């Protein structure tokens, strides 16, 4: 007998055509799957009623186990039980060797594939393959719970994941046979779970303190679009550190002397249970039993708080840094969302609340909140909601920029920015009396425009003539959810505007994007050299122009012949070298012109001050 869910008005699907969708939180320590049933986002438990699936995969010669059974093998078979695989997603061998001391696995790589693989009893596996095993188990749980196949899934990734890490996550989904609607940033998912996307705009901090990692993300919501302003954190700070701090207290307090691995595990387990109990109780009594010996002790919340205060302070330092990066003050944050099991600790909630000067949101289960947000997004993308609830988020594959003087590309929207996105930057004029500006829109990571892809050119005309540098031209980039981009340029003092619509990634295949990215890394050094040269060339031309303009105005009156000749010699030397000299040479030549003109500049300044003050009484002059 079919079990039906309540649909939105008019959105009932035909039998056997239900659009089932799931949100997956593919975590470092634990993973979860959630869905929307009868309009409510819920996590889907396994047959034993457990929501969490430990992100551990254990390979034996003939089988592969995922979750709790694999987790149980961790201490007995550490080399074949792979945990924390998320840390290796999208990483090369070099990154892996850097992590070598914390990852006990044996890595292999072959000539034809640069992807590092972990050698296990069941064969060699890459991070993508191992992650896909976790995804397969979660997807199967969702199919069993919904009694139907999944239309698609949304998988969450940390906001700081780069393109390679996101691509690896995409590949894992494909390998698991899942239709990936899209990747979603974890902090965004948490904010969506709390319905913050329903607000018009706001500044949101997502404080994510898990078992072994801490992440802080500052988001700006603008008309239903989340923009990541800053991220920060500590990849080795979490609830486990609290267990360790409490464990050490137990060892000291109980006078335990002889410690072996089993004993340490027992103590950590006791510490963890005590920590969890202290969330609800003011004090707990507990015991450590090991090999016939038993220690009993008691700890109250004040004592525990003293043990972990430094840890929480560390997280707040990261919050302060992230706020600084975002250019915000703590009091400007409107909503604080708590994610991760460790945010249940009362001291964490109170210290975070005090820091941001508001009560943090922690009504939803902090372990589930990311998966719930992903499920809400997946439900919308599967088409189970009326269109006006549409929420779209994606990332830009390559940076978008604008050509500046000297053929340089100035990036306005960095690659991996979530779209839709809007960003603006101010430019100014290069020449006195300039009344128009040609705007050249480019995409790519390279420093020179000629190495990037040209997308569009348009002109902003008719703003009033001003001295070079006085005009304020605000160029706004907007990329909508379908990747359609519009560029608006406005001269802000006169209000003159011009705009154009382009499709940025049109005609760029995945391979092209990949080779463009690779080229930007290969050419990084020479690109920077070229950029420096171009910048000096632009500066040289500006100096020549300024000298010419000044000399034409008052060179004859303020300078004697020798001085004039000296300036002109240096100016000529600079002019003849502009196209041939190196960046350093140009820098010296520019400096030579500036040095020789120093007295001239001083005299010009005095002259203009004199002119301004001429014929005025002392009290008419505003200081």
């Amino acid at each position, binding site marked *: *007998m*079919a*079990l*039906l*869910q*309540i*649909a*939105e*008005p*008019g*959105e*009932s699907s*035909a*039998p*056997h055509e239900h659009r089932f969708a799931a949100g997956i939180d593919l975590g470092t320590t634990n993973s979860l799957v959630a869905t929307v*049933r*009868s*309009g*409510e986002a819920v996590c*889907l*438990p*396994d*047959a034993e009623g457990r929501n969490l699936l430990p992100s551990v995969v254990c390979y034996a010669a003939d089988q592969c186990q995922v979750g709790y059974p694999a987790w149980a093998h961790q201490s007995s078979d550490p080399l074949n039980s792979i945990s924390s695989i998320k840390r290796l997603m999208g990483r090369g061998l070099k990154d892996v060797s850097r992590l070598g001391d914390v990852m006990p696995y044996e890595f292999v790589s072959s000539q034809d594939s640069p992807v590092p693989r972990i050698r296990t009893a069941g064969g060699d596996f890459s991070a993508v393959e191992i992650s896909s095993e976790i995804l397969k188990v979660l997807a199967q*749980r969702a199919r*069993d*719970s*919904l*009694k139907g196949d999944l239309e698609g899934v949304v998988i969450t990734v940390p906001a700081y994941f780069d393109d390679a890490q996101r691509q690896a996550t995409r590949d894992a989904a494909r390998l698991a046979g899942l239709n990936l609607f899209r990747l979603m940033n974890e902090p965004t998912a948490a904010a969506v779970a709390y319905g913050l996307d329903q607000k018009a705009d706001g500044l949101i901090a997502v404080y994510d303190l898990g078992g072994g990692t801490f992440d802080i993300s500052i988001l700006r919501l603008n008309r239903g679009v989340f923009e990541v302003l800053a991220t920060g954190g500590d990849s080795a700070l979490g609830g486990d550190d609290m267990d360790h701090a409490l464990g050490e207290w137990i060892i000291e307090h109980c006078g335990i002397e002889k410690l072996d691995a089993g004993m340490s595990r027992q103590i950590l387990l006791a510490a963890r249970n005590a920590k969890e109990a202290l969330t609800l109780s003011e004090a707990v009594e507990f015991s450590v039993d090991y090999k016939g010996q038993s220690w009993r002790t008691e700890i109250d919340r004040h004592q525990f708080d003293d043990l972990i205060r430094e840890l929480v302070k560390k997280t707040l330092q990261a919050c302060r840094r992230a706020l600084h990066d975002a250019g915000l003050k703590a009091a400007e944050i409107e909503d604080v969302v708590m994610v991760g099991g460790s945010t249940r600790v009362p001291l964490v909630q109170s210290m975070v609340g005090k820091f941001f000067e508001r009560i943090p949101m922690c009504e939803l289960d902090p372990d589930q909140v990311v998966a719930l947000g992903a499920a809400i997004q997946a439900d919308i993308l599967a088409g189970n909601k009326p269109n006006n609830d549409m929420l779209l988020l994606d990332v830009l594959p390559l940076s978008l920029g604008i050509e500046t003087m000297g053929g340089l590309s100035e990036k306005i929207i960095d690659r991996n920015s979530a779209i839709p996105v809007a960003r603006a930057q101010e430019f100014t004029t290069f020449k006195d009396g300039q009344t128009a500006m040609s705007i050249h829109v480019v995409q790519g990571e390279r420093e020179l425009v000629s190495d990037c892809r040209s997308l569009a050119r348009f002109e902003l005309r008719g703003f009033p003539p001003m001295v070079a540098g006085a005009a304020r031209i605000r160029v706004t980039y907007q990329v909508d959810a379908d990747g359609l981009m519009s560029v608006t340029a406005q001269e802000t003092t006169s209000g003159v505007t011009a705009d154009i619509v382009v499709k940025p990634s049109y005609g760029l295949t995945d391979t092209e994007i990949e080779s463009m990215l690779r080229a930007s890394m290969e050419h990084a050094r020479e690109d920077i050299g070229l950029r420096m040269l171009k910048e000096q060339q632009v500066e040289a031309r500006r100096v020549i122009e300024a000298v010419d303009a000044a000399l034409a105005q008052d060179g004859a009156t303020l300078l004697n012949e020798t001085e004039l000749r000296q300036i002109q010699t240096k100016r000529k030397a600079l002019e003849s070298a502009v196209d041939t000299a190196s960046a350093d040479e140009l820098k010296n030549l520019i400096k030579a012109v500036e040095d020789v003109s120093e007295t001239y500049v001083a005299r010009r300044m005095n002259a203009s001050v004199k002119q301004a003050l001429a014929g005025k009484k002392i009290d008419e002059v505003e200081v």
Partner: protein
Amino acid sequence: MAIHLSDLAAARVQHFLENRGKGIGLRLGVKTTGCSGLAYVIEFVDELQDGDEVFETKGVKVVVDQKSLVFLDGTEVDFAKAGLNEGFQFKNPNAKDACGCGESFTV
């Protein structure tokens, strides 16, 4: 003419309506589709339409259009769990023959 909700079904409907934050009740109906002729409709109701009949049962407003009512009279809606799955179940005395999945039926 009447349609009933089991206690559990009524409680779940109320919970889902509260969670959704809007809506005046639960729409039950049939539409001509599916492998055996007719399929059940179960939706939230934001506004009533012409020809809607409203029943109040266990604190829940159940909305049925007159055309569907013919096929649904005497139906009891229950909320059930089967393995990991859970959802609403129609017990309809008018249904003579249901397809294997029970999502559609004939009268």
